């Protein structure tokens, strides 16, 4: 492609016909299938797509860091500052990484060497001791001298990401690859990190590839957006124009599934794509065809080319003129089923207190950290309460106490009828036993009921149908299912014997937008139709507002605000809630809206807790 006429400079990065094949378990598959793309100096381009779209592979290919055990086969051309990367020797690639292309990683917690001081790791990047302090200060870190001498484990996630940004930007690279740099961080820290990245990139005229699955984050930061699906470019365009009027059904689907604080919470979220088979980007057909609601015969016969339109938008779709109708259809998403509520309390937490850390020993003073300080919370039958807070606020601890998995130091937990609740965990794949079929794992909950084998099978099939999984899949092992299906299985396991109370621990935080929307729809419908009470722990205020009747805000072990969901979001009372609400990225937001928050000095207990 060529750049719009408003960009006079020659591109610093130009990719032509890039194909990448990677092997996994001895089977090679095409991960990138013909990418064409240019990046101008100082430009910020967001690469948007779900996991498996190949967006991270582009970043790794640019750095020459594709894992050797995947035996990468690369063809096409990547020219970075006039140098060809495809086919370059390892030595040349190392030179490129040293000065021209740098990356900010996804998870700052693991990306710093735990046995090396921050200063030493920055000096390895070619900085003098003075430059290290200067760069630490520039990234907004308080007391750079102390931080330079510190070890990574004593810093919070946000501080570590600042260190990693300093490490990358100090090399004055021409291209910066930021691979979901904020997904692992708290929402208030996210905004600060995005601002910092954008400001530094502008100042140094660094071209930035911003890899994300979140269109709203892209909207706040990027000049242009490139939507990837299954290793091919679906659509490229200027950010605001693309978000206002997507031209590819996949972009439209991403936008429809995307929810924020302005989404309509009186009905279910609109989802376009079904989570069917994962498309493989090979063959002469549109690779979105199996999920596309607009698919026609020609979509499975020919591969659509990336066509440039009058307005500069590039789209690879035969049906792009029908996308506006599709968006209209989304707005008629089904409403929630009828809910039944009663006055009785499904869960009652009374003055819960909990501390962690070593107790006083003979030779050691107590080093206890209070995690929960006298929490009172009641959930009525059929009601959903969302518990929100940042990492280290104690929300997961409270959930584990409510589940009876952890004993509080003080206070009482009581469940309706004394029946312990069911829990849906964040990592669904890890919450399933890998060597048992999913049917057997659901059956485990039916065993105490003394049902016949036949009745058990019937109940299992019913539960699977309820969560939208083909009952035939009960004989599958968890490894044979997708992440979304695994999460549905854990829900089926929880509801096969209808519980009075369901506890959800960040069930959507590791999910793509479309999957998250589907999971929210599922949980929201189930709890209403089954009359379950629900405690939904999340750091995502938008999800909390959608799913819950009431929101409880937890700050450092104290409940600072509890109220009706809409009220808490539209008129937050506590300063902490105001800050959380203000930090949520919104789709309608523009780059100017991105506020600068004063960097908060986070104390050590925060860093340790997260």
């Amino acid at each position, binding site marked *: 492609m060529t750049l719009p006429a408003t960009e006079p400079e020659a591109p610093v990065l130009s990719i032509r016909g890039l194909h990448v094949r990677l092997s996994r378990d001895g089977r090679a598959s095409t991960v990138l299938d013909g990418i064409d793309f240019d990046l101008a100096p100082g430009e910020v381009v967001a690469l948007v797509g779900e996991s498996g779209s190949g967006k991270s592979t582009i970043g790794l290919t640019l*750095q020459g*860091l594709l894992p050797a055990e995947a035996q990468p086969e690369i063809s096409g051309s990547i020219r970075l500052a006039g140098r060809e990367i495809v086919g370059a020797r390892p030595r040349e690639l*190392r*030179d*490129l*990484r*040293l*000065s021209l292309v*740098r*990356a900010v*990683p996804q*998870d700052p917690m*693991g*990306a*710093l*060497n*735990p*046995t*090396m001081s921050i200063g030493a790791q920055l000096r*390895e*990047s070619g900085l003098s001791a003075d430059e290290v302090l200067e760069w630490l200060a520039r990234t907004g870190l308080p007391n750079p001298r102390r931080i330079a001498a510190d*070890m990574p*484990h004593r810093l919070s996630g946000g501080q570590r990401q600042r260190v*990693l940004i300093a*490490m*990358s930007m100090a*090399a004055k690279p021409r291209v910066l690859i930021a691979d979901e740099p904020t997904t692992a961080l708290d929402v208030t820290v996210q905004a600060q990190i995005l601002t910092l990245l954008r400001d530094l990139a502008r100042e140094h005229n660094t071209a930035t590839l911003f890899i994300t699955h979140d269109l709203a984050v892209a909207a706040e930061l990027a000049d242009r957006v490139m939507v990837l699906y299954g290793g091919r470019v679906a659509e490229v365009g200027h950010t605001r124009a693309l978000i206002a009027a997507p031209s590819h059904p996949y972009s439209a689907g991403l936008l429809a599934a995307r929810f924020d604080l302005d989404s309509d919470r009186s009905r279910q979220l609109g989802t376009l794509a079904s989570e069917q088979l994962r498309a493989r980007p090979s063959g002469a057909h549109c690779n979105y065809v199996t999920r596309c609601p607009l698919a026609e015969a020609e979509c499975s016969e020919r591969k659509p080319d990336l066509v440039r339109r009058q307005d500069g938008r590039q789209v690879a779709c035969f049906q792009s003129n029908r996308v506006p109708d599709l968006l209209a259809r989304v707005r008629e998403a089904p409403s929630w089923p009828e809910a039944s509520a009663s006055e009785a309390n499904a869960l009652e937490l009374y003055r819960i207190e909990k501390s962690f850390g070593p107790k006083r*020993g003979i*030779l*050691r003073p107590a080093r206890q950290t209070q995690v929960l300080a006298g929490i009172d919370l009641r959930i009525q039958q059929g009601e959903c309460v969302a518990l929100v807070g940042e990492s280290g606020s104690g929300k997961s601890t409270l959930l584990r106490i409510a589940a009876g998995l952890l004993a509080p130091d003080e206070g009482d937990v009581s469940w309706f009828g004394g029946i312990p609740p069911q829990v849906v965990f964040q990592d669904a794949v890890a919450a399933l036993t890998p060597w048992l079929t999913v049917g057997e794992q659901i059956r485990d909950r039916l065993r105490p009921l003394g049902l016949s084998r036949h009745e058990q099978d019937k109940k299992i099939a019913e539960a699977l149908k309820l969560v939208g999984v083909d009952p035939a899949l009960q004989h599958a092992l968890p490894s044979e299912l997708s992440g979304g299906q695994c999460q549905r299985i854990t829900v089926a396991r929880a509801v096969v014997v209808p519980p009075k109370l369901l506890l959800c621990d960040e069930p959507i935080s590791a999910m793509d937008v479309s999957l998250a929307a589907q999971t929210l729809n599922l949980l929201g419908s189930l709890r209403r139709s089954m009359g379950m009470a629900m405690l939904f722990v999340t750091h995502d205020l938008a999800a909390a507002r959608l799913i819950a009747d009431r929101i409880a805000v937890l700050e450092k072990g104290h409940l600072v605000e509890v109220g009706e969901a809409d009220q808490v979001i539209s008129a937050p009372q506590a300063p902490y809630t105001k800050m959380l609400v203000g930090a949520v990225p919104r789709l309608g937001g523009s780059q100017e809206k991105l506020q600068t928050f004063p960097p908060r000095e986070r104390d050590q207990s925060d860093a340790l807790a997260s």
Partner: protein
Amino acid sequence: MLAYLAKRLGGLVLVLVVMSFIVFCLQAIIPADPARALAGPSAPVETIERIRAELGLDQPLLVQYGQFMSRLAQGDLGTSIRTRQPIAADVLKYGPASLELIVFAMLLGTSFAFLLAFAQTTMTRSGGVRLGMLAAGSFPIFLTALLLAYFLWFKLGWFPGSGRLDIRRFTGPTGFFVLDGLLLGRPDIALNAIWHLFLPALALSVPIAISVGRSLNSALVDVMRQPYIRTARGKGLSGGRIFFRHGLRNAASAPLAMLGLQVGLLYGNLLIVERIFSWPGLGLYTVQSFGSSDLPAVLGIAMVFGAFYILVTMLVEVLQSVADPRIAL
């Protein structure tokens, strides 16, 4: 750190008390009679009774144990029946030979372990290395030692097969002959001592090399997959620098623990190897004490090695906390 040391030393005392009790009880159960062994098979009953009284063996067991413990508190491990020397003096006399051997075995074992792990991490086809480690690991130590002695000493004559030095009657200030040779300005003696050390140390080093090598290798495989290694590669650092500065130190903890375990448990192998190579150390001393039912000596040596094990474990934990600043003692 101080609290840690206090706790560990407290543990040391506790373990020694328990161990002394167990070994002492064994002494009462085993039907061998040290007094008869000392007097000889044809000695008259009166002589045996006299020796028994001399050794305090006619006292009730509990009294014997009490006496033993009170002497122990004063650093007296008792008197050897066989050598008629205080056992503490024997430990000081034979200990340096064993310690020198252990240190060399440890150095050799660690070097081999490092080479093995490095080969497995860097080579694309490391199946041969793994097979060799499996084969070497399946050899019992007495067979390794005998094979080494047979080929490298008896057949080829490259290394001496017994003793600590070619010259007899050498004494140095420390008892560590390599060190003594250097201290006395006699590098020839130091080299000769190393030459003698080689075969027994090699035999002892095989199990150390294999267990530590495997542990180091699996730790390295894990560490080299960590995101911070990708960060280091993303900085454009060279492969060697990434391996040594970012990989090795983070992988150190598990192999250090394994090294401590292997060295701490070396005692059993030491008996065999010192016996085969006639190495005048505590291993050979123990074997000879067994032969003459010298239970006080066996008891004393067992306690010395028990203490040695705890000290090695302590050292390992200190080293681990040096390697990884997240481990606080």
